């Protein structure tokens, strides 16, 4: 196999947040990432750095990851102060090193918020989002025979809106990028997903009250419409979902 002429490799200085446990003070440590192929993903770059650390007998950098296809919502870190890095609509695993230049310094920090505890280094406990889902992010349908297709007439436009909301992978970038560490985009997406579908309507009132209550209990901040979440969401979920959540909450609370 001949080596492609335009194959590029870059050298980077990384400043990575290292923290050995949840209640220990963390700090930025500097590492050198040499000869990084620009075809690599950000996580592959971290893999290379970790291999080097392991060979040196040092503790590798802990980070969350799973599918590495941008669909599971497991990965995520603040890259130079931006959730999932500087590219729009991208998870960290889909951020490629071609977006960086030779001799760049990259600061990598975990999601930081009271509701998300740092487990180790860049790995963050996002189970607060699971608690919100447990509070009402489901439909308690009694399983019977499979219903006929198109038995419930339903406009395509609403189905698309529900699908846009359902695109949320629960990565937590909205919370991480929000100046107030608010989870309103996440809850907005989950509430909208069900509120827009006929199957979700029967429990709409109970759901929105329970999910917002749990969100507040978990210690997330309050939305002040900074719209940073919308700009950083890897699935580009719109804040119209937050407005829908507000409407659903008003309806549920006062009607």
């Amino acid at each position: 196999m001949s080596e492609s002429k335009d194959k590029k490799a870059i050298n980077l200085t990384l400043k990575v947040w290292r923290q050995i446990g949840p209640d220990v003070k963390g700090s930025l440590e500097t590492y050198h990432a040499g000869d990084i192929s620009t075809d690599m993903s950000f996580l592959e770059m971290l893999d290379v750095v970790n291999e080097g650390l392991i060979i040196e007998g040092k503790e590798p950098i802990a980070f969350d990851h799973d599918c590495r296809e941008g669909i599971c919502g497991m990965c995520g870190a603040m890259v130079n102060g931006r959730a999932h890095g500087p590219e729009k609509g991208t998870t960290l695993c889909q951020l490629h090193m071609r977006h960086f230049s030779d001799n760049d310094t990259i600061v990598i920090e975990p999601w930081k918020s009271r509701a998300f505890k740092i487990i180790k280094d860049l790995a963050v406990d996002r189970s607060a989002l699971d608690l919100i889902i447990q509070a009402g992010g489901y439909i308690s349908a009694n399983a019977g025979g499979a219903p006929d297709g198109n038995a419930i007439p339903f406009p395509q436009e609403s189905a698309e809106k529900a699908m846009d909301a359902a695109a949320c992978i629960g990565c937590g970038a909205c919370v991480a990028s929000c100046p107030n560490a608010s989870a309103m985009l996440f809850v907005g997406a989950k509430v909208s997903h069900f509120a827009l579908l006929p199957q979700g309507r029967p429990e709409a009132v109970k759901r929105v009250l329970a999910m917002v209550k749990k969100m507040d209990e978990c210690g997330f901040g309050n939305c002040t419409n900074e719209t940073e979440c919308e700009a950083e969401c890897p699935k580009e979920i719109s804040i119209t979902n937050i407005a829908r959540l507000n409407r659903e909450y008003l309806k549920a609370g006062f009607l």
Partner: protein
Amino acid sequence: MNWFFDIIRSSIGKKMMMAVTGLSFCIFLTGHLIGNLTIYKGKDAFNTYAEKLHSLGPLLTAAEIGLLLFAVVHVLSGTLLFIGNFYARPQRYVIKKSAGGRTVGSRTMPYTGFFVLLFVVFHLINFHFVDKTQQTIYLIVSNAFADPVYVFVYIAAMIIVAVHVSHGFWSAFQTVGANHPKYMPIVRGTAICFSLAIGVGFGFLPIYIFYMQ
């Protein structure tokens, strides 16, 4: 009534109160500006406007009490939200950059809000809680704005109010759920125009009075 307090105590409930009271202040600002513009028609027009306003009697008192009540709600829930948001991220990022969502208005909301509160107190002491039996309102206003320090303070305050309103106006629509992809750009555009109108409209009055003397 438990259900009611549960709703308004929640994060969304507090935001709703901010939105409703804030939008009411926008309506108040509009009325206040239209009234103040009579200054351009001269001394008598302004004094007549003030007299007419005061002849409303109990209606005016009711409006004043309403405004005071709304101000208390706006300041209290704003403070609670600010404290809550401060504690929601106990450990700050070493580096945090905006993805382009934040504006000057949204960034500075709690701080501009605090300055607006200080200004309102200052403004009320200047023009509201003064002896109006011996002098006309025009005289009080023109005496105050003969002093360049007052002119400067008022212009600075109007810039701060305009910055606060530029985010508050559209934000209130979003909070009460009035967001539609078709209309949101209009609402956001209106917010900019409205804040400019408030800033320029009120801001030029002290300059006009200063140079008229």
